């Protein structure tokens, strides 16, 4: 059973967002998302400096089964991408909320973060998709 960390924010497209306290956020895909996709074999992430737009695709994850876009949860500029995933994409499966993070982002407008889902709302979304 997947547990949904209480201290993170979420999107309807199954990204998680962690507030780092230094004005940046870290983004990854949820345990539920990696479970739906299965074994990851390829992760393509935006480079540092890339400007991204909330709700627009900014990366790709591919499993044996399928390819899926990764969407920017909020608008802003990429600070760092997780380079380790290029050689070990399976980390996304093994530790989706930890070492499987995808990129750090400096939000252009902090108010956008408030518009994201909290853990309870995301849990309800996952539950509704199972029916």
């Amino acid at each position, binding site marked *: 059973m997947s547990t949904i960390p209480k201290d993170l924010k979420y999107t309807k497209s199954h990204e998680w967002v962690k507030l780092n306290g230094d004005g940046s956020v870290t983004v990854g895909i949820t345990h539920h998302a990696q479970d739906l996709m*299965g*074994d990851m*074999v*390829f992760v*393509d992430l935006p480079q540092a400096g890339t400007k991204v737009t909330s709700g627009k695709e900014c990366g*790709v994850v*591919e499993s*044996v*089964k399928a*390819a899926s876009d990764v969407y920017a949860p909020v608008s802003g500029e990429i600070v760092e991408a997780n380079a380790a995933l*290029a050689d070990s994409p*399976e980390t996304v*499966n093994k530790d989706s909320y930890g070492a499987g993070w995808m990129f750090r982002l400096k939000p252009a407008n902090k108010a956008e973060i408030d518009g994201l889902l909290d853990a309870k709302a995301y849990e309800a979304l996952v539950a509704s998709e199972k*029916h």
Partner: protein
Amino acid sequence: MVLAMGHRTPLYDNHLKMGAKIVDFGGWDMPLHYGSQIEEHHKVRKDCGMFDVSHMNVVDVKGAKVRDFFRLLLANNVDKLKTKGKALYSCMLTAKGGVIDDLIVYYMDDRWFRVVMNAATRDKDMAWVNTAAREFGRSRHPASRDISASLHVSGLEVIPRHDLAMIAVQGPNAKEKVYQALGEALRTPAGALKPFHAATVGELFIATTGYTGEDGFEIILPAKAAPFTWQMLNEAGVAPIGLGARDTLRLEAGMNLYGSDMDETTTPLESGLAWTVALEPSDRKFIGREVLDKQKARGVPRQLVGLVLEGKGVLRNHQKVVCNGAGEGEITSGSFSPTLNQAIALARVPAAVKIGDRATVDLRGKPATVRVVKYPFVRNGKSCL
């Protein structure tokens, strides 16, 4: 979403107990994986694993005229089957030469051939076989509406075996583990089987066939005995393997998948299956022959080739392949090869394309270079590239 329960094999509860992720496959609730599809893939290449393939359609065809019937029904020639137990891979064709299904037929004795066909095509296969059998037997009785029932015509009986299950045990250690799990008594009769042969041992039908490119057995057994047998194999250290790994294993082994690499709109000659079509002797009038003769005389316009992606990414079914100067083709089976750690595919391309050529595939909007290769990609755990 409409919740409709699919067909279930006798091993369905075993899969749930082992933590399988269940998916619909051609109307059947089947295990996709039991945790990690890639780990399951490596397990089969390096050790061994077992697959529930009870959804496949096992049909016994019996009677004095059984060999004549298959001479008519199949594109490959059952006259190649001279020793008892020998198996033959063949396509069954429409009158237009399209592939209805691919199958394995085992010659058990002069009055008994056993056929194993695909699960997803069961209804149309049985309708086709029954129609062909009725014409062959010149039956004047009205056709039964129940295509899952046995059919009797003069000299021929078609008997779908709903009472059987099927477990494939594959990998370099598969045979040893089978003897360990199911009894040393199997070692002599099963161990003596050459590749692509079968024998019955008590209630077990054991065949040296498979869909992975590895050593091993396919075991057909009474449905009632399947859960216990599965358990015994697992206790001997045989890991359960889902349909996900089954697909990447067969793709690496360069084995066609019905519905992806060939169907009723393609002939075997343009599906990499010319080796399974017996045009000699020329007087054997099998169904679909006329079209294949014509296609061969005019030149087969398309061929199935292997592709290897040079960079990162994954090749997928239906992606367009642009072949420099030779036209366009399409990926029929694309995936990621866990053994080679790169994307591979089977693709149907124009006949002018040559092994070693480079081509371009549109990968989600980005052009990517692929190399045209001869397949299989992997055999007995080793790269063939």
